[in-house]
């Protein structure tokens, strides 16, 4: 039964991804084609230059040849087909991860393949936001349970107010302040990036990464864990009001065991979902955060490609983050269905 649900949900996700890619292709078709045309012009110009230096051809021949090459490339990239067909081919290309070549940006190895540029950044983004999310959730669980234990009391109220204070605070702004304070006033942390230059070798390499990771993660946790604690409090609070908790307490089971054994067990599925969802939201919502810390992840790639107006990288980045986001949503549903047997699998939504 569960496997049926898994397959259904995965297919659903894939279909949505394909639809979205089609929408993006249609929306941004003009822009992409402009870039491709510019790239073709550049390539043809290079070829003509190479031929003219050899000195064998007359100017007229060169002209004709350049026209021929242009027609050849236009056909190669399907630019002579009707609009609809172009959109479809672009969408299919994107779905198959054929993002094309970048105009300016290069990967660490100097490649201009957009896929390679993006794949390079994904693990870094996951490292940053994953670490922050793990710390977030652990802190959130500890504080959330404390809050739920004595709802409405000083500690609960204080932390709730803190939740609301950071509610509308842009994480990148806090990042700027943290950099100003911890990097330029008391010089404790590096100003950004992922490694020192040159990066140290061996074990020190990892320590160096950790050192660079500390400040951004600290910022993310400061912004994030209040909200996490608030949600966990609400989840645990509604569980704590159940009868079986009362009966457990009446039987004289120690409070710690009631909280962590009984209550947290029942509250686990929504907490896990929430943790994953928060990771998803913070990755998609906090992408600009990376560029403040010059963390070379996917968010920073958005920044760079916007600054240098490198459209293919921008589009590739968008398609890939959409894919990741949908993946996350699917995994979320699957885990939820797995953890909570009360969810009717295969039933109507």
């Amino acid at each position, binding site marked *: 039964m569960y496997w049926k649900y898994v397959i259904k949900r995965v297919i659903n996700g894939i279909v949505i991804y394909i639809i979205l890619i089609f929408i993006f292709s249609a929306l941004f078709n003009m822009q992409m084609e402009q870039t491709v045309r510019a790239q073709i012009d550049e390539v043809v110009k290079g070829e003509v230059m190479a031929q003219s230096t050899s000195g064998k051809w007359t100017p007229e021949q060169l002209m004709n040849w350049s026209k021929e090459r242009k027609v050849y490339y236009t056909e190669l990239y399907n630019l002579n087909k009707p609009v609809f067909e172009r959109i479809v081919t672009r969408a299919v290309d994107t779905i198959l991860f054929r993002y094309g070549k970048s105009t300016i940006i290069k990967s660490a190895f100097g490649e201009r393949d957009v896929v390679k540029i993006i794949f390079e950044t994904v693990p870094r983004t996951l490292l940053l936001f994953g670490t922050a999310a793990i710390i977030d959730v652990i802190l959130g669980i500890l504080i959330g349970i404390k809050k739920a234990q004595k709802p*409405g009391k000083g500690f*609960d109220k204080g932390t709730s*107010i803190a*939740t*609301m204070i950071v509610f*509308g605070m*842009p994480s990148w702004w806090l990042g*700027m302040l943290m950099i100003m304070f911890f990097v330029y006033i008391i010089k404790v942390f590096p100003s950004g990036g992922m490694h020192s230059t040159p990066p140290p070798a061996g074990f020190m390499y990892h320590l160096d990464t950790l050192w660079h990771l500390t400040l951004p993660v600290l910022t993310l946790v400061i912004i994030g864990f209040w909200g996490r604690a608030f949600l966990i409090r609400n989840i645990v609070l509604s569980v704590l009001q159940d009868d079986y908790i009362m009966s457990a307490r009446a039987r004289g089971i120690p409070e710690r065991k009631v909280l962590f054994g009984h209550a947290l067990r029942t509250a686990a599925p929504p907490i896990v979902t929430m943790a994953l969802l928060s990771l998803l939201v913070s990755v998609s919502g906090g992408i*600009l955060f990376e560029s403040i810390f010059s963390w070379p992840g996917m968010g920073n790639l958005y920044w760079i490609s916007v600054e240098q107006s490198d459209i293919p990288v921008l589009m590739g980045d968008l398609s890939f983050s959409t894919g990741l986001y949908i993946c996350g949503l699917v995994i979320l549903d699957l885990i939820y269905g797995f953890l909570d047997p009360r969810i009717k699998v295969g039933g109507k939504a």
Partner: protein
Amino acid sequence: MKLKDLRGSISEFWNEFRKVKSGLVGLGIFVFFLLLLIFEPVLAPFSETNTRWRDISYWDDNPQSAYPIWVNFFSAKKYAKSSVLKDPQVSEEAFGTNRMMTYTFEYDYQYDIAPSDLILKIQGTGAAMMDLTFTRPDGETVYLTSSNLKMVEGGVSRISVDKGSKSEAYDFLGGFESRDNMRKFQRSSIKPAAILFAKAQENMLIDPEPLKGKYTIQAAILLQRPEDTISNVELVVPGRVFGLLGTDAFKRDLFSGVLAGIKWALLIGLLTAIVSVMVGVIYGVISAYLGGWKDSAMQRVFEVFNSIPLLPVLIVMSAVFKPSIWNLILIMCIFYWTGSVKTVRSMGLQIKEETFIEATRALGASNFRIIFKHIIPLIIPYSFASMALFIPGAIVYEASISLLGLGDATIVTWGQILRDAYTGGAVINGIWWWVIPPGLMIAIMGMSFAFIGFALDKILHPKLRTR
């Protein structure tokens, strides 16, 4: 619904709301923002902030990167305030057809840290020669500059000591400063104003001691033709502190900028939240009410929209289409409405089965009438909470887009000020008064709506109330 009923339900609601303290605080902050918005024309020191924020000439008389004025309360050394000296003593002498006009300004200097510049502004017509002399309380006199003025009707001639008198100040310095110290600085790298207001002694370049007292600045202007005129001679003293929030590296008054950002933040937040939540409510109710395959189809469409990562799409759309602020709001509404659909749909499914809906249907009411007249008014109050909680998100999204430099360049928003601060090196140079206020405003506005939203949530969903 009759007016009386409405008033009754509002007062009932207010009685509930009054009990939630945090909600009242949020409401208080919101009202404060509204007041600031209404009195912006009175409060803003620079009335043309909204239209000329990016016009460098408008801000030319201000000091660059000046501290907020209240820094003087906390600092042991007092920074010079900015001021404009408007009423010089005027004397006129005639030499045949030539006239010599002398304008004498008195400047009482009682600070520890010198102003950043002295700017003489002259309006008039025709050509003139001008000598600027600077007399210090200790009797030293410095000839600052002599320049030829070519004035046109309506234009303003500006003579900046900081730009034009480096050489003269350096020569003045040479009389007192040791040779070793002199060698450390180039003629072009000194700050004339800092030297002019320092005690004439050794080390005045490196560790200047302030010379307090009355300074006299004299502008002698020689007019050669009888039809030439001079008017409105002013001496601007750009200090080291300026206004409530200081100035940025482009000499703009940050208080005016932050004040101008309020209306855009409120507009973006409220409009986006109200429109998108309303769309979500209508969509959810229609989907629940119609049921069957129409419901399924609408849910599929909802799923597609719900799977879009919002900020990346916003960034790419802004980068490609370069939208104005109105189009940006529209784009945000298009992708933002999904948040409330699920809860609204489940509520709609419940309400749909109520007997009064059945009765209305039996009376022959159309679907349209049932949905908009009977179901949606019941759900609207519950959507207020999500509206309030949507607002901060919308403001932050706009700020993020602006931070990337993709915002609407015809307006002033907090995000754009932060963009300028970030690219203008405020973080590296520690210009905290450029970074903190706009971001803090975003945070405070978000906080106020969070307070209101959570309070509404508490009232409307009593399940989460603490027992």
